[in-house]
């Protein structure tokens, strides 16, 4: 029996956590920007924002590889500063963030659109700037939905495999997340290690679902009241 290498757990948690943070900010900004606009151009915008959700992760990974590779537009700029993204830890974050972004964007937008516009208008007549209207009125009222989106994004980032493998590869101790460790364990016929990772994934996922349930049902009395009526 060999010593189990726990690094995939930490890599997975660090990757998902960092990716979720980026996704939260970007998804919220995109949702806030989009929620106050209408028109045919928005269909195109939605299409672009939601593409990572409908495309197979390998395709997303392939595009990211083109973008961040040595000859890609972003890759060249980064190389200029002496940084290489492909097959490094940041690559796992980028892959996870891009794949999780649509979930954050969709839930945050739905939550923001649910906010009664009268609250926002009342805030405006009281002299609040648009930033204050968003931060002090819209965001707190949409918070349960935004939080649910955050948890979903974290879960999606945690399960990310295809795009991560394309962009970050499998470097044990650096880019090998739990899903990648499972894949390579099975490939190496190490069923016991694969089983341990799978069980750990189940535990983390159940904890996330419990958090989701808690935040959307217990912490938001407004919604609970709706349900009771």
């Amino acid at each position, binding site marked *: 029996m060999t010593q189990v290498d726990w690094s995939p757990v930490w890599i997975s948690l660090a990757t998902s956590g960092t990716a979720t943070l980026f996704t939260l900010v970007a998804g919220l900004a995109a949702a806030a920007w989009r929620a106050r606009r209408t028109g045919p151009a928005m269909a195109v915008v939605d299409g672009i924002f939601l593409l990572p959700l409908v495309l197979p992760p390998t395709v997303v990974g392939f595009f990211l590889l083109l973008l961040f590779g040595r000859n890609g537009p972003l890759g060249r700029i980064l190389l200029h500063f002496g940084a290489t993204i492909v097959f490094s830890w940041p690559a796992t974050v980028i892959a996870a963030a891009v794949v999780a972004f649509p979930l954050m964007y969709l839930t945050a937008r739905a939550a923001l659109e649910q906010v*009664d516009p*009268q*609250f926002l*208008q*009342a*805030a*405006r*007549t*009281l*002299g*609040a*700037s648009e930033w204050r209207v968003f931060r*002090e*009125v819209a965001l*707190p*009222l949409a918070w349960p939905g935004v939080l649910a989106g955050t948890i979903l994004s974290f879960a999606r980032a945690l399960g990310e495999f295809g795009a991560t493998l394309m962009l970050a590869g499998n470097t044990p101790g650096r880019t090998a997340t739990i899903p990648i460790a499972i894949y390579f364990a099975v490939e190496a016929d190490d069923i016991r290690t694969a089983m341990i990772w799978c069980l750990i994934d189940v535990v983390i996922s159940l904890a996330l679902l419990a958090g989701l349930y808690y935040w959307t049902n217990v912490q938001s009395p*407004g919604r609970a*009241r709706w349900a009771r009526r």
Partner: protein
Amino acid sequence: MPLQVQIAKSLAEFSLDVSFASESGPLSILGSSGAGKSMLLRCIAGLDRPDHGQIVLNGRTLLDTEKGIQVPARERRVGMLFQHYALFPHRTLGENIAFGIRHLAPEEQARRVAELLGRTHITGLEHRYPREVSGGEQQRAALARALAIEPEALLLDEPLSALDTHLRSQMEAQLQETFAAFPRPALLVTHNIEEAYRLGEQLLVLSGGRVAAFGEKEAILRYPPTVEVARLTGCKNFSRVRPVSENTVEALDWNCTLRVSRAVEATAAHVGIRANHIEFAEFGSAGGVAEENVFPCWLARSSETPFRMTLYLSLQGPPGFGEHFLQAEVSKEKWRLFGEKPLPWHVRLAPDSLFLMPS
């Protein structure tokens, strides 16, 4: 004039085309639903943009589409009371009231919040959340919040419609108190003529997006300029007329000739009388049966409210099929005096109570 409004806006159902100049003090805006009342307030508050027009408040131009001026809502200093209060549910009443004065020093904020809580009679509720207080208390907090920014004008959108009868009269007293201490324009939108009359000094009747009447409330109720205004202000009885002489008309739908107190103009096409102005010759203040504008009437049916009776009367003959009925309102006390008497009774349509309107 402290408030000058002249705006036009096309909407899906109708177009709003309103212009008026109002004094300081409460102005009631009366209209049926969909007449454009709320849209008018929203345009003044800066929440909706008219297609073209001009709004000037206390000498400050808030909107002038020709000059390209459009002051955003947050800079208009117009206090708006929303129909469903729109109190922020995640903030306490005190935080709600302080929302618009957060740029002030904390002690000044606290002082003003305390003063407003007192003025709206909700002292002690500042730490409660909106869902923890009654509808009337929410309404008061919303009023305090609008007053906190020391607005240049106060706009109230159906402030009493969401309250039950008891709370409504309390809130009415609150609003009267507030208006008395507010020396600036206050616009109150309602579809209820009694509310409009009790709370406003001036009255603006809006119909289909246009001003149907604007002026002193007594004058509008006494001599409504059109049938529409008469109807919106609660008049139930109308008849087509044909001018007969300088001060008599033939009421075609009521089968009678009426004497009126004002000179009959050639354009007169309808006559109206309010249900509570119909007198009964045998009883009450009216004189004998021989007096002018007294006609025999027969009771077709009646409907009872807690304190009043509404009587549907046919003039000149017993009720037949498809006739025009005159609707009269009498107190229960009076009704007890003559309700049992044999028909016909005699109604008196006092010349002073009749008003003529063009078609």
